[in-house]
């Protein structure tokens, strides 16, 4: 039941990406190309995606978080980190370069699975490889030297 619900929630997320045009890397790159403002080539649409999404979550999260617990869970899992460490700058800096190179962030990469052909699969494979690499590296960093797994 809960798994079906999560499928439906993911479906709505994906529909949002496609309806918004965010699933199209050409649109994303034209949004990021602010130097084209003068020539009329800039596509400001994606600013409206963020505005629409945040308008809903800004109010919606506050209403939901008034509850003591989620409908199908014991507690809310909200990020607890507050410190501005090097990772919160380095990670997004690297992410942004990749996003600007291809126009894909993780959600649109997923919606392209069945529609983007081989190029989309290549990006997805590389993305999951990058994710795996970051998880391994993060685990090494956190784990004390004594309990590090052998390489």
């Amino acid at each position: 039941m809960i798994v079906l619900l999560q499928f439906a929630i993911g479906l709505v997320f994906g529909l949002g990406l496609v309806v918004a045009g965010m699933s199209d890397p050409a649109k994303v790159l034209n949004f990021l190309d602010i130097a084209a403002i003068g020539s009329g080539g800039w596509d400001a649409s994606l600013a409206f995606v963020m505005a629409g999404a945040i308008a809903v979550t800004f109010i919606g999260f506050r209403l939901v978080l008034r509850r003591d617990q989620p409908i199908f869970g014991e507690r809310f899992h909200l990020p607890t980190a507050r410190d501005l460490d090097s990772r919160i700058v380095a990670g997004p800096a690297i992410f942004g370069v990749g996003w600007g190179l291809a126009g894909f962030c993780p959600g649109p990469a997923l919606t392209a699975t069945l529609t983007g052909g081989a190029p989309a699969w290549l990006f997805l494979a590389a993305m999951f490889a990058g994710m795996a690499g970051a998880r391994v590296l993060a685990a090494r960093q956190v784990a004390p030297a004594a309990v590090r797994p052998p390489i």
Partner: protein
Amino acid sequence: MVATEFTPVAALSGGVLIGASAVALMAATGRIAGISGIAARLLPPYDDDGFAGRLAFVLGVVVAPLIVALVTGSMPVPRIEATTPVLALAGLLVGFGAVWGNGCTSGHGVCGLSRLSMRSLVATAVFMATAIATVFLTRHVL
């Protein structure tokens, strides 16, 4: 580059759907709708029993274009301009950077900003800046 239309109404509507999905996930499971976090945790090691739910969410995102195709009669095909080596490099950077920075456009850019998280504000400002700089370099300098 491919010319695109300015589509504010569609963009706003899609954004509302994304926001509604994030609120629904928070209400149902108590979790942030961060695509990179959900996708990355499909890979081992598994630290909780949420795998099936995450897989279901991801499959929902994956089949969404088919639903759009059924309703509108035309498949929404992504226009990918990047070459093969650039796609491979971009994928690595996006995957690594999203996990290293604990989030991407959805987790930081939507969920985090609406929670007024300072970490997400920093993350969003940084990835917007490097993405804009990258497009500037590749389109107008190199």
